[in-house]
């Protein structure tokens, strides 16, 4: 296992406000061994062909029916699926665990794209509360606005909203990146533990309230700082990363990242130096 304390990458990560806690307990991390690949099976996943494309009109379908049909199409190898007439329905596109090009021609309701791991999604509309909750990996792009709790508890992937978002964006997030082209509401980054949030516009009150770790970049004004959220120096590596990330996200072209504010945890509130003992976790 790599020695985190001496690895050069640690310095770079730290300068960007990532992984700043000192891990002193026993790690629970399991490492993937390619030689044992055949022993790994990810239930509910499919090998799909991105060139195999189809449309699915969900106008007359309930959300479970639509999600089952998406699953059925993936099982047939379709790698690009265009969803027609989502019409604000809740819980569409949830639980997709493999690579997939998914395009929604319209808006989603609550909990759209929840608990996904891998798909690339474009939503040509708006999304309601808790979009992409628990996202593990992949990319979700929303062309219009988003509701509250955007990207709640995500652990990885890129979540991009080209419009504005509601309150509690990135609440409890544990990794990944959230990028917002417009404004964001109150309690953005509330209790976030890792990952990064980029807001190009203004943000509401209590920014980064009770955040444990991670980094928030703000391009506009800040309503107020939450408990234990503090300013940090915007480094050259931050700016390089922001420029790269915004370009990949196709958002904020020509945005002057050098004027962005960087917010991190003051770390006066938290104390999780000691990881939970394995025995205790096992008992739970």
């Amino acid at each position: 296992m790599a020695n985190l304390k001496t690895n050069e990458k640690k310095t770079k990560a730290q300068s960007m406000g990532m992984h700043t806690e000192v891990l002193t307990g026993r790690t629970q991390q399991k490492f993937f061994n390619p030689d044992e690949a055949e022993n790994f099976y990810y239930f509910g996943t499919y090998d799909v062909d991105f060139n195999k494309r189809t449309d699915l009109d969900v106008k007359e379908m309930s959300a479970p029916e639509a999600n089952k049909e998406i699953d059925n199409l993936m099982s047939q190898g379709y790698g690009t699926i265009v969803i027609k007439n989502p019409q604000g329905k809740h819980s569409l596109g949830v639980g997709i665990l493999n690579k997939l090009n998914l395009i929604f021609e319209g808006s989603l309701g609550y909990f759209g794209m929840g608990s996904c791991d891998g798909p690339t999604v474009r939503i040509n509309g708006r999304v309601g509360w808790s979009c992409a909750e628990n996202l593990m990996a992949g990319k979700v792009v929303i062309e219009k606005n988003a509701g509250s709790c955007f990207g709640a508890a995500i652990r990885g992937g890129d979540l991009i909203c080209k419009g504005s978002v509601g309150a509690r964006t990135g609440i409890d997030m544990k990794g990944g990146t959230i990028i917002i082209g417009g404004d964001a509401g109150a309690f953005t980054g509330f209790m976030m533990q890792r990952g990064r949030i980029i807001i190009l516009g203004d943000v509401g009150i209590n920014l980064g309230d009770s955040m444990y770790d991670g980094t928030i970049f703000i391009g506009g004004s800040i309503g107020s700082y939450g408990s234990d959220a503090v300013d940090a120096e915007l480094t050259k590596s931050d700016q390089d990363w922001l420029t790269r990330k915004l370009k990949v996200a196709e958002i904020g072209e020509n945005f002057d990242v050098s004027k962005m504010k960087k917010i991190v945890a003051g770390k006066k509130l938290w104390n999780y130096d000691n990881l939970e003992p394995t025995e205790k976790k096992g008992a739970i």
Partner: protein
Amino acid sequence: MCGIAGLIHRGKSSNVGSELQGMLQALKHRGEDSTGYALYGDTDGKNFIMRFKVGENVGEGSSSIMEDVSVYDERKKIVDQTLNELGAKIVKEERTLPYSLRYEISYDKKDLLEFSQRIESIPGVEILSMGKSLEVIKDLGNAKAVCDRYSLDKLVGTHAIGHARMATESGVDIKSAHPFWGYPFSDVSVVHNGQLTNYWNNRRMLENKGMRFMSECDSELIAVYIAQKMREGASLEEGMKSSLTGLDGVFTYFVATKDSLGMAKDTMAAKPLVLYESDDLVAMGSEEIAIRSVLPQEIDTYDPFDGEVKVWQI
């Protein structure tokens, strides 16, 4: 959980009864213990429309006490007699259900406080709404059931707000159902989604100022709070802005008057609201699917931010 919906047509009238029914029915999964409508219909503006009840719906699921229907008739007789004593003339009378009535009344005085106090001093009688355009209709069941029961689908008007209720803080009965009339103000109504945590303190304070509460539903506080602010000379918008600090808890609520509709969201933004705004229509609801019931095509919607107050005119 509860769901709220509202819409206002600007510069024209529409079939708001049917439209609001569709919006609230789309939200029925948020609660169908009771559903209420506050409809602002097209009228000549000469007479007051008084919606009132002389008893409760004691059907399945109700938390009300069963009464003999004959007491409804007795109460109605006393209401008629009291109206006569007040100098109010009944122009038109409709009795939709044994416990629910609609009167068109010719009444000259503008101050409705004494009027309302006299009518509601009759045991078992509650004015659901009083106004020259407003009609509050609320009963147990989902939006379609209430709409069918009261034949609301043909009502034409400019704006409307409504509520699909999951009873959490008080009983399953009409008196706890939304919308609440902004007693004693003509044509003021309120719907609310959320919970207020300083209900009793505010209630005691407002009762000391002469305001009345008909239920123990925390949402009623908003109607009374706004009404009191307006009594003190505040505009609707000023009263709503004051509520952001005066009311504690989580809330998104709508207030409607004869010619306007407003929304307010608490500073935590804990309760949902999706908003669609165009030159001729503003529609809003707890979920986008409510708006989609009147605008099925792809539209641009957004969530108002925390602490936001907005008011639109017809």
